[in-house]
């Protein structure tokens, strides 16, 4: 997994590329911290370039959402398609974290 964080408008934008699996949990911690510490009330995780995600990857997204909520912020998922979108729908993550196309 590779990631890029940008401050775009009124939301923090996080771009995740490649595969998001358990092996990426250490690197993803920086994303979780960046979202919680951000000055913006909203964080948008862009999954356009994410090719594959496993259950730990979904767990990390849920964790990021939990920690953001504790810090009074909201997370949104965008750009998911193919396998990633199917996993999001199967796991019903879209019922917990808002998903925008």
């Amino acid at each position, binding site marked *: 997994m590779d990631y890029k964080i940008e401050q775009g408008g009124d939301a923090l934008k996080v771009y995740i590329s490649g595969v998001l699996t358990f092996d990426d949990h250490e690197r993803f911690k920086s994303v979780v911290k960046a979202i919680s510490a951000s000055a913006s009330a909203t964080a948008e995780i862009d999954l356009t370039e994410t090719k594959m995600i496993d*259950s*730990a990857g*979904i*767990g990390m997204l849920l964790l990021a959402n939990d920690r953001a909520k504790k810090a009074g912020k909201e997370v949104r998922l965008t750009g998911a398609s193919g396998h990633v979108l199917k*996993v999001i729908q199967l*796991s*019903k*993550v879209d019922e917990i974290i808002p998903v925008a196309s």
Partner: protein
Amino acid sequence: MAPVAMKSPFAKLLLAALGSAESILAESTRDVEEQTQRLSGLFTSLTEKSSEQTERLSELFAQITTVDHDGQSFDLVTLPRILQESLQEVTERILVLSKQGVGLIYSLDEILEEIEEVASCIGEIEAINRQTRLLSLNAQIEAGRAGAAGVGFQVVSMEMQSLSRRIDALSEKMRGSVGKVTASIRDVIGSIRSEYQELSEIGAMDLSSQIDAKEQLEVLLNALVARNSEIQKELGNSTDASRIMAEEIHDVVMAMQFQDRMKQRTEAVIGAFDQIVSFMGELDDLAMDQDACEALTTAILGSITLSDVRREFQRSLSGSEAEESEDSDDMSNIELF
């Protein structure tokens, strides 16, 4: 039939022919009646069997769309739905575990960072303690140089050295504890990593198989629903066809009851023949007695209750049409059926 007296050969021939015609007509009437009753019976049984067949088809359909397990009956259509729900539940649990696992590792990492901070503090304490020990040693040397005046100061520096040794022992103990806690936390993180590795090996981590299973279950569910609705439609068609067949057979049976009208007509003809035969039997020969013939005509017409038969006889015997007002009797006979 009345016995035939001595008559001319023609009268005998006529009588014999009438007698044969009468008995053939009577026998034919009986045959037609018997066959009609048999046909009615067969058609009725056909209707009943057709209804039974439709009922059996419905029962069979009900049986093939359900399975029994542990005394409970499950509709086959609901089975894929139950499996989908189970799959959903398993997936949700995997996600909860995944989230908790990653969350736990993050928390343990944070604790490790704190412990590293504690270890660095211990290092600082040890450095300060080394400095203190050196200072107390210097104080001792300076107290020795001062002679009797430095005796008290020497006691103080000795105590400081003792304190420094205790601090050393304490920091050594703390370093040991911190080492043990750090090792334990690293063990926990390591075991969580290996648990994830195992999950990954049995395919629970990559959700592709769950996605495939979900999609296949959806296809199966749709196929079952479509098949059931197709069978229901066909059963409905079959029931409709059976009902129409039963109605048509009922109409056929009703139509066959008009056989009775034919029987009545035949009996009327037989009755007329019977009277002619009796009349001829009572006369010596074919007398040309107009009055007797007219009386016979009246007697024959009087004995016929069916209006169409009477009309026909009246037309041939007296050359006139029967009165329509007498038609009601035979209509009521038919309406009895």
